[in-house]
């Protein structure tokens, strides 16, 4: 039976994805979230979690923040682990640089979530035009919305995120991956790799 399995580095990623899955597909197949205790824990346990997963029809989506590592290194390393675990079809998505980059790319959603007036207008400020390049998105977001916290904030923002937003490429690719895995009925479907 088809199942979507997200392997995530922390609970805030789960909160975000839980907020967008029902908006992509009202009646999705079973979705499981395996939430690790940070990226080291994800890196360490990924192979075992994939290798001994019992459902042969499960579709895996691995996601972690890029933070200050090289995006391609992070991705290739995770891909290699998926292949080592016998799950070469698992899709790896890297948030450039962190979840907060995606929120900064959609200030209208942040404004709607927190009721902070005038935020959406600032989307055209130079630094929020392409927020994937911002070095410290967490700090930038807190500067705009001091009450933002990772899990609670993600729960609030996710329902407002514009799923067609292309301002952050990595968010766009994640949404596309989720759409592809949810929409296909073929149980043996392996999502097509998309270049970041």
């Amino acid at each position, binding site marked *: 039976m088809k199942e979507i399995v997200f392997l995530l580095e922390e609970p805030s990623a789960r909160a975000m994805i839980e907020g967008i899955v029902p908006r992509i597909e009202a009646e999705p197949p079973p979705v499981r979230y*395996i939430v690790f205790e940070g990226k080291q824990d994800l890196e360490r346990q990924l192979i075992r979690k994939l290798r001994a997963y019992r459902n042969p029809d499960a579709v895996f989506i691995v996601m972690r923040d890029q933070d200050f590592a090289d995006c391609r290194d992070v991705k290739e390393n995770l891909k290699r682990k998926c292949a080592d675990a016998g799950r070469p079809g698992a899709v790896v998505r890297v948030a450039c640089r962190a979840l907060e980059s995606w929120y900064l790319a959609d200030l209208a959603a942040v404004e709607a979530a927190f009721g902070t007036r005038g935020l959406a207008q600032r989307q055209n400020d130079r630094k929020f035009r392409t927020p994937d390049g911002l070095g410290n998105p967490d700090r930038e977001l807190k500067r705009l919305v001091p009450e933002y916290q990772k899990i609670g904030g993600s729960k609030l923002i996710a329902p407002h995120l514009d799923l067609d937003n292309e301002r952050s490429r990595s968010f766009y690719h994640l949404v596309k991956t989720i759409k592809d895995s949810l929409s296909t009925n073929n149980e043996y479907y392996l999502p097509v790799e998309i270049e970041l």
Partner: protein
Amino acid sequence: MKIESIRLKNFKAFRNAEISELPKMCVFVGANGTGKTTLFNVFSFLKDSLTDNVHVALTKQGGGRGFQEVRSRGADGPIEIELKFREKGDSPLVTYSLSINEENGRPIVEREVLQYRRGSKGQPWKFLDFSRGKGRAVTNEPDKVTDGSALQREEHELKSPDILALKGLAQFEKFPASKALGDLLENWHVSDFHIQQARPERESGYAEHLSREGENLAHVTEYLYRRHPDIFKTIIEKLKQRVPGITGVDSKVTEEGRVLRRFQDGAFQDPFLARHVSDGTIKMFAYLVLLHDPKPHPLLCVEEPENQLYPRLLAELAEEFRDYARKGGQVFISTHSPDFLNACELEEVFWLQKADGYTIIKRASEDQQIKAYMEDGDKLGHLWRQGFFGGADPL
């Protein structure tokens, strides 16, 4: 004495729940409010029913509206509790079932049966079968009877329909099964340790067993120090390994008759009094005292042993609980600690989850995915944190 299974119907959050093939050590996890404490309360309820009557037991659990409050919301029909146990490893499986109802606003024992099978075939023999204050109990020694037809029964009427017939039978040495059950219900123990209770010096007194909240720790320390020096020495050795700096503990009764516990720190000449020692030290000391009890309880229930303890010590604590269970009593533990769970075995762990307002109990070993990961060398605490314990997580 080992409990093999527990079945509950209409008991508070347990509308219909059953756990079977219980190991000597059982560990329960579950979000707040899923019924871990209620599960332990089954034994307080049975104890109160046995020593007083079901009316008192219901009032203790549910206040003035006793029966209505203890019976699951939205349920009608009686409250049912069934325990299956063995007196020893090879003795027959005994079933004790109790069904409590209400009639004209007063609780009554609808049915109370104690039965077991001799050998693996045939009808179970009912040693005790009562309903609404009347019934039959066996009078000859069951162990000497090999043919069911040789059992002699006598009609009895109890003083009131809300008392347990077991109360009478449990007194007699010649009924080992009922005596074992009575012993379990009277001597089971719950530990819900409160540091502030255990810290102060106390007027001298006598206690062999640590109390529920630990307020008699000073007395039990004094008892072990004087009467069981070898056990006391073991406790101190373990404490020294686990709490850096501690080199010894002793107990002293002052001239005014107060019991002092003095903790020696290797770096200082004068010992510290218990009231100045850290929470974690007191707690570790209390658990060591509890678990090295010269006369273990037949059933020990422990609520969240992890509080105040350094995470790395929890693995050893879990081993000590298992050791206690191996040597004597059965141990039920509720925990919220992944570190504690990491030290548990697959067969030992259960989780409680709510479904449509009522609690269901799941067993980790029956989940094929958890089993597959454990066979691959994973640990239960990690799997729990990663969300593999189904509905055990709060939303």
